[in-house]
């Protein structure tokens, strides 16, 4: 019986000899029985067996146990089993602790039974110490309904919206432009099948418009998103169209009379439109709207001609922006891309030389319905272009402008456009200046071969510069043919820049609104590059299409359907379980300085009444806010600072004068698994190491690390995931590095060699490297010698 009412039952598993052949189980059991708070200590041949489980259930009832410690295999195998078991007995599942004495003892110290037994005792002591302070935590359940917000009405958003709506979800599709269709609607034909883009897109646009489960909100933007999965409160701003959509029949009389001409965005300025307009002939919804930035009445207060001629009385100059509030359960982000701004590369003269155009403009020029009725002309004199050059990798694969990535579609669209040009007139000279041709998709290489067969010239070399002949406006292109090593200087009528893809305007702002992250190049960052390619680190928010990174239509559609599928996975669960291991604020210590706010990669912290507040629905439980708090006012549930320090004291208690101990903190996702792998691979390593399991190393504090030195550690090893391997945000690694810097500075002030603190990133499969790291660290400590008692006494925490 203990004074604080904690009654611990400890069970040691033999694992059918796997443990007991090396570790002296009886000794460990006797040791555990004498630990404070322990009411009962037993051992069993197989703790995971039904008889053993029945035994635990009966013991809990008979001895009124309220904490259970099981020393057996890695918690990765049976933690869930035992959690369920004690829950059956009426205990909170977070009252369970496990000591890993198979993968971390018997399997890695098989040559040293004594050392293995001592280590097993220490690990059990630590588990008991931690269990004493374990608090009951409630797993939260969140109801998930079938309401979905899709942001972006390009092909990605359309595909995701249709998939979800067909599955019975209620979809709100928000599009910033007055029509859906996005960039795909502006394309001519699509590689590698050469379908006409709008021919395959417009049926889908119509399906969205007519779908009973889709609410289409065009000319609208998401302004604010609050809440969490299952309960996102979304504020959408609908911009005024000044034309009543219910009345407009798109007769076009207004546009005939409108006196104001504006460059047409849909045609990249190659044609003029009126201030009252429909974006294009296949727009959905096919309704006119007034461009308020250019309308004479709205800018200068005169005109109103459209109002006079409209037979439907649809013009409404009193129209105001509207705000719509919706609540949704999941969000899909499909905001697409913008073409790279080629004016940034002056050597190619885009915007300066009339006959240098960007590839999206050529898409419009080759369209029979386009601004030139399909004729590819020189913009300087309107003559048909006979000699045409494409320059690849404009705004891609270029470190100097901060865009090192490949845009993945430019090779193929240039090949497509070159073939269209050749098909229009086989005598045309068409050159493609490239660095590498990347024709990696299904049917792409065959497509490339067809282009070569047509006699399109491929020159391997990036164009250095373009010079315009001031009289003829012809363009002289200088490049090296790197295959022959000779310089090429050729004259062309038209130069097409194959511009890369950049995130669409407003991506950064939307990332802030949604509290999701952007990665290299500014595209939205996926939760894992391979296994979670359409998830974000915020539960319930998914990304797809070019918003995630440059990709072609096939991949975009595949990813959009994937995002819809991942959303449906949540939706069909009806409720999801939220792990209760979250950061919390000790309000009495917090002075509201707000240093933690930026440090939370998920934006879960706010300041209310000059105290930090953590939104549990947003908190990912990484703990990277904790080391930044100058008041030590933030802590992590189930892995509190107090608990970890108690574990440290217990695990180092057996240390005798002159012995060496290395304390290791292993993150649960990578390093702990690597250590398990060392166990299953029977890689023996030093028995001087003692291991404490933590969710992420960013949860540690200088206080914890200094305490470890004070209570007997001679060196400390901290292992965490490589970027990309962690379930947490990549910024966690920055927090760990900051923590290391800060702690090393403190160590130096205490006159402790900072080499005694080592941090390394460990991948799950690098057990050998982990073992070597630990062995090396012990060797170093043997050279330096254990810390002397007087040195430890000087450590001020």
């Amino acid at each position, binding site marked *: 019986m203990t004074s604080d009412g904690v009654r611990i039952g400890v069970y040691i598993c033999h694992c059918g000899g796997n443990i007991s052949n090396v570790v002296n189980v009886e000794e460990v059991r006797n040791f555990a029985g004498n630990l404070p708070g322990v009411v009962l200590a037993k051992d069993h041949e197989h703790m995971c067996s039904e008889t053993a489980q029945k035994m635990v259930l009966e013991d809990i009832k008979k001895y009124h146990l309220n904490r259970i410690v099981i020393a057996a295999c890695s918690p990765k195998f049976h933690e869930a089993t035992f959690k369920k078991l004690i829950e059956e007995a009426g205990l909170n599942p977070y009252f369970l602790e496990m000591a890993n004495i198979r993968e971390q003892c018997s399997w890695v110290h098989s040559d040293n039974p004594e050392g293995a037994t001592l280590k097993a005792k220490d690990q059990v002591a630590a588990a008991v110490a931690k269990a004493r302070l374990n608090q009951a935590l409630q797993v939260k359940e969140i109801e998930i309904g079938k309401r979905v917000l899709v942001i972006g009405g390009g092909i990605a958003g359309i595909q995701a919206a249709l998939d979800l709506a067909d599955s019975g979800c209620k979809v709100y599709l928000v599009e910033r432009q007055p029509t859906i269709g996005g960039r795909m609607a502006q394309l001519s034909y699509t590689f590698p099948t050469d379908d006409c883009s709008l021919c395959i897109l417009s049926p889908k646009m119509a399906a969205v418009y007519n779908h009973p489960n889709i609410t289409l909100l065009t000319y609208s933007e998401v302004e604010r998103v609050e809440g969490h999965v299952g309960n996102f409160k979304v504020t959408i701003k609908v911009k005024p169209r000044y034309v009543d959509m219910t009345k407009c029949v798109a007769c076009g009389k207004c546009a005939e009379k409108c006196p104001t001409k504006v460059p047409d965005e849909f045609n990249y300025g190659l044609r003029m439109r009126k201030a009252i307009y429909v974006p294009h002939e296949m727009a959905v919804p096919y309704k006119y709207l007034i461009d308020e930035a250019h309308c004479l009445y709205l800018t200068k207060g005169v005109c109103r001609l459209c109002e006079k001629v409209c037979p439907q009385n649809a013009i409404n100059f009193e129209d105001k922006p509207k705000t719509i509030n919706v609540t949704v359960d999941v969000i899909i982000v499909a905001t697409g891309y913008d073409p790279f701004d080629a004016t940034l590369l002056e050597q190619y003269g885009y915007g300066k030389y009339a006959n240098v155009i960007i590839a999206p403009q050529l898409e419009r020029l080759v369209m029979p319905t386009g601004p030139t009725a399909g004729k590819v002309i020189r913009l300087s004199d309107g003559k048909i272009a006979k000699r045409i050059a494409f320059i690849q990798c404009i705004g891609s694969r270029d470190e100097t402008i901060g865009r090192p990535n490949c845009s993945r579609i430019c090779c193929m669209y240039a090949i497509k456009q070159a073939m269209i040009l050749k098909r229009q007139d*086989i005598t045309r000279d068409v050159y493609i200046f490239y660095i590498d*041709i990347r024709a990696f998709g299904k049917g792409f290489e065959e497509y*490339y*071969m067809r282009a*070569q*067969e*047509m*006699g*399109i*010239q*491929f*020159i*391997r070399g990036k164009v250095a510069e373009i010079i315009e002949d001031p009289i003829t406006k012809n363009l002289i292109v200088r490049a090296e*043919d790197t*295959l*022959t090593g*000779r310089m*090429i200087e050729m004259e062309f009528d038209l130069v097409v820049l194959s511009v890369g893809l950049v995130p669409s305007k407003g991506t950064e702002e939307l990332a802030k609104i949604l509290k999701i992250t952007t990665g290299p190049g500014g595209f939205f960052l996926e939760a894992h590059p391979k296994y979670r390619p359409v998830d974000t680190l915020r539960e319930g928010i998914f990304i797809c299409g070019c918003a995630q990174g440059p990709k072609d239509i096939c991949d975009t559609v595949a990813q959009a359907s994937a995002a819809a599928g991942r959303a449906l996975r949540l939706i069909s669960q009806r409720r999801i379980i939220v792990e209760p291991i979250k950061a919390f604020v000790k309000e009495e210590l917090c002075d509201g300085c707000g240093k933690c706010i930026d440090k939370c990669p998920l934006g879960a912290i706010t300041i209310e009444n000059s105290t930090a507040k953590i939104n549990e629905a947003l908190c990912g439980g990484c703990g990277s806010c904790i080391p930044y708090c100058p008041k030590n006012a933030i802590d992590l549930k189930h892995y509190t600072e107090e608990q970890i320090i108690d574990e440290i004291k217990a695990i180092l208690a057996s240390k005798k004068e002159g012995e060496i101990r290395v304390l290791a903190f292993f993150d649960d996702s990578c390093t702990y698994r690597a250590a398990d792998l060392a166990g299953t691979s029977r890689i023996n390593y030093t028995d001087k190491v003692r291991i404490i399991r933590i969710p992420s190393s960013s949860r540690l504090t200088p206080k914890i690390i200094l305490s470890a030195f004070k209570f007997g550690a001679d060196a400390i090893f901290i292992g965490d995931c490589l970027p990309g391997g962690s379930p947490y945000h990549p910024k966690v690694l920055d927090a760990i590095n900051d923590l290391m810097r800060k702690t090393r500075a403190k160590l130096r002030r205490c006159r402790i060699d900072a080499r005694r603190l080592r941090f390394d990133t460990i991948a799950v499969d690098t057990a050998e490297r982990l073992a070597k790291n630990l062995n090396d660290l012990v060797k170093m400590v043997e050279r330096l010698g254990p810390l002397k008692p007087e040195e430890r006494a000087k450590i001020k925490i």
Partner: protein
Amino acid sequence: MFKGLAQKVYELTGENVYLCFQCGICSGTCPLVSIMDVPPNQVVRMIQLNMEDVLDSNTLWICASCYNCTVRCPRGIDTARVINALRNIKMRKGLYVVNLRKVPEVGEMPQIALVAASRKLMG
């Protein structure tokens, strides 16, 4: 369909040099490439780019028409035949024509050498 040398080669052989994507296996497999001034892959490249000086390279005359390059070309170009076409083009300009009757040792030459020499030198 094509222009310049590429068209001439196409007319003589039916081979489309634009199919070449410059993998370089023809040069890699050629037993005589070490003494050629322009390796076979560059010969094809120069035809694509209509560089007439390819006709002055020694490659045309060193090529033994072993057909290794033809057998291994992943794009199915008969490279040896293309080089043969270049020899024809060069010889039709009236240069390098040999009258076999005036070659003194012709009776003692091995048959295979005679055939190869005729191919090369008589077009």
